[in-house]
């Protein structure tokens, strides 16, 4: 097996760096003009056949339940309906009940704010650590990778219990550290989660801690794709490390960054486990609900939860429409 010969290959423009190449099909886009006669049925079916394996499980395992959830949101459907009581159509009533409740709007506002702050922090820290990873030796890199992976891969049940212990009022290590070595004796019995503001601070620490590893791994993988020759050419042109990062690496991994940022927004908007566990650790529940936990508290009224889920979809869409449009534009 001969190694791929690439001696003649990538002569990429060193500067100015361009955005990651929108995929250019070797054939000019087919659907815009009449397909050439000789393209067989099989070749036109090619992409669909490639998509099919992904499409089938998603449609069945996710699509159907999602559609059903949407339909239920226009009914009155709770536990009793599951045991055979007929479901009554109520039109938009579930939606109007939710949207006319000022409390729900409060939850939405808090969630959006929490989501934006957390997504931004996660992305900033994640990108910084990913870049750091490209600059250090193998030993340090693997240490960092394994450390992050442990944070990401340990069962949430255990990590959330530990976080709860760390911030415990009575026996928490955080209070102990503040009071004993640092001398802030007033913090010895500090209740971290009883005030919504400091509750969200603790939640942010935990959420960022749990989300950063994913961002680091993905962005780091993206940075590895940047061809070395581009970097070298830029270096020869006198670009310093920061300029190379800012103008070369980051733009080239933009597709990955966009995807990751988008997912962070989606995930942080519906953050559930961390908030749920912290609430159960002793926070005032009603004042600390975010959308995820609020939907869960409605869970026995499936139709209500379904309506709230649809509302969340709209919010997510509004929050991300800028990215989505940009992304789709690049898809032309």
């Amino acid at each position, binding site marked *: 097996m001969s190694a791929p010969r690439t001696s003649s290959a990538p002569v990429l423009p060193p500067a100015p760096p361009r955005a990651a190449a929108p995929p250019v099909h070797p054939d000019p886009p087919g659907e815009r003009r009449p397909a050439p006669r000789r393209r067989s049925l*099989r070749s036109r079916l090619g992409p669909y*056949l490639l998509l099919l394996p992904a499409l089938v499980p998603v449609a069945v395992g996710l699509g159907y339940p999602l559609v059903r959830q949407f339909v239920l949101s226009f009914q009155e459907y709770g*536990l009793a309906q599951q*045991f055979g009581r007929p479901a009554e159509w109520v039109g938009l009533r579930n939606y109007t009940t939710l949207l006319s409740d000022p409390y729900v709007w409060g939850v939405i506002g808090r969630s959006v704010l929490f989501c934006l702050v957390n997504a931004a922090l996660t992305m900033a820290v994640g990108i910084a650590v990913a870049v750091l990873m490209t600059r250090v030796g193998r030993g340090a890199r693997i240490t960092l990778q394994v450390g992050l992976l442990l944070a990401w891969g340990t069962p949430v049940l255990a990590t959330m219990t530990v976080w709860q212990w760390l911030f*415990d009022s*009575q026996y928490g290590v955080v209070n102990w550290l503040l009071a004993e070595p640092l001398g802030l004796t007033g913090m010895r019995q500090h209740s971290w989660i009883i005030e919504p503001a400091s509750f969200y601070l603790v939640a942010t620490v935990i959420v960022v801690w749990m989300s950063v590893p994913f961002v680091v791994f993905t962005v780091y993988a993206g940075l590895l794709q940047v061809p070395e020759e581009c970097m070298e050419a830029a270096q020869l042109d006198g670009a310093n490390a920061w300029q190379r990062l800012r103008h070369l690496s980051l733009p080239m991994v933009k597709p990955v960054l966009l995807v990751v940022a988008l997912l962070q927004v989606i995930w942080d908007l519906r953050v559930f486990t961390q908030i749920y566990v912290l609430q159960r650790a002793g926070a005032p529940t009603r004042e600390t609900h975010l959308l995820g936990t609020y939907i869960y508290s409605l869970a*026995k009224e499936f139709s209500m939860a379904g309506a709230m889920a649809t509302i969340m979809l709209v919010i997510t869409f509004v929050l991300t429409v800028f990215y989505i449009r940009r992304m789709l534009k690049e898809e032309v």
Partner: protein
Amino acid sequence: MTRVRTSGLAAASVGLLLALTACGGGNEAEAGGSEEIRLWLAGSDTPQELRDYLVETFEAEHEGMSLVIEEQDWSGLVPRLQTALSSESQTPDVVEIGNTQSPTFTHAGAFSDISDLVDELGGDDLLEGFVEAGTVDGDVYAVPYYSGARAVFYRKDLFQQAGVEVPTTLAEFGDAAVALQQANPGGAANFSGFWLPGQDWYNGIAWLYSNGGSLAEQDGDAWVGALSSPESQEGLQQVQELFANATSAPRDADSAEPWVPFNNGEAAMFSAPTWARWSIDLPECNQGVDPDDESEAAQAALAEQQACNEERTGIFPLPGPTAGEPATVFAGGSNIAIPAMSGNQEAARDLLRIIFSEEYQTMLAENGLIPGNSEYADALGDDVYAQAALAAALDAQLTPPAEKWADVEAARILEDFFQEVASGADLAEASARADQLITDTLA
């Protein structure tokens, strides 16, 4: 070329998925079989010995049938019931369910009507509040499996040093807790006379109930919050006093693991189910036995350690407003029912008959659980723990048997409310707000 290759690959993967789906279809038959009946027990409260008894007895009475007991975790019980109970092939034939979860499923129609069986199972001797939680419109769908109540654990040495006697009325209990807190005989930092964390409504409602108050009352067809009633307010006032002067427990904690501060010398009293005795581990008694050490010496040391702990620790039922009567505390425990979807109704009813037999009820009691049929509660024994448990349990009260009570618990309205009380909120205002939330939720 390319196209052929890639589409071939795609076709192969679809084939793979289909093949995988197809080969899974085989195990449908065994799930719906009628030769086997399944009992879901919640949590680890039912000892192995009792499970063995059920299996042996049932299988002896039913030639050719087998009983399978599957233990379900409390934390995942509700979602599992939500799904499995509505499936003909997956439903268990008999289920244990938490007493506060019982009304929701009963009202939803998840269980079979067993009114005609009630007399045979114990009739009026069945724990009343539990039967009520399993009743809709006079028909009984769920019956009590066992109950447990809370009692107060205390440090005898700290009582002695502070010159405090075991209280005989609820008022004396409050005074004793305040006195202990002030005396702080052990000199511990952040000491509590009575460990009462801010969200601990399971213990807190004892004051409400004992003063004749309640969480919600039925008003015609509707349920309304009753925290604002004068009786409830009186009880809440006493609770707020305890929060202010008798405890240093964090406001952002609940009833979980109260023995931890007790073991650390930071609380003179705490209230918990009587099995908490096995978690008491005072440093002055701890012999540092390696848990792996199974030698006789180690076992002897452990026994000595337990004896030492129990010698220094006392237990009493929370006293009521008048001397000689226990307080009305919150009743924990569970119900048992036959899912409506079960295809083995007759066998399931036979299993209930075995569970409510004298033998089995006595075995429950001997294992420290208050049996569903109170006639057999005497078998609990006469050690202090059993006596305290029994005294507390006989007067214990459940949460309101409203259809949507589980939603009140899911929304954690009472946790939030007691936390406000602990933070020194204006009682009338906080109660009015909480009442409104309860009324809206139960509507």
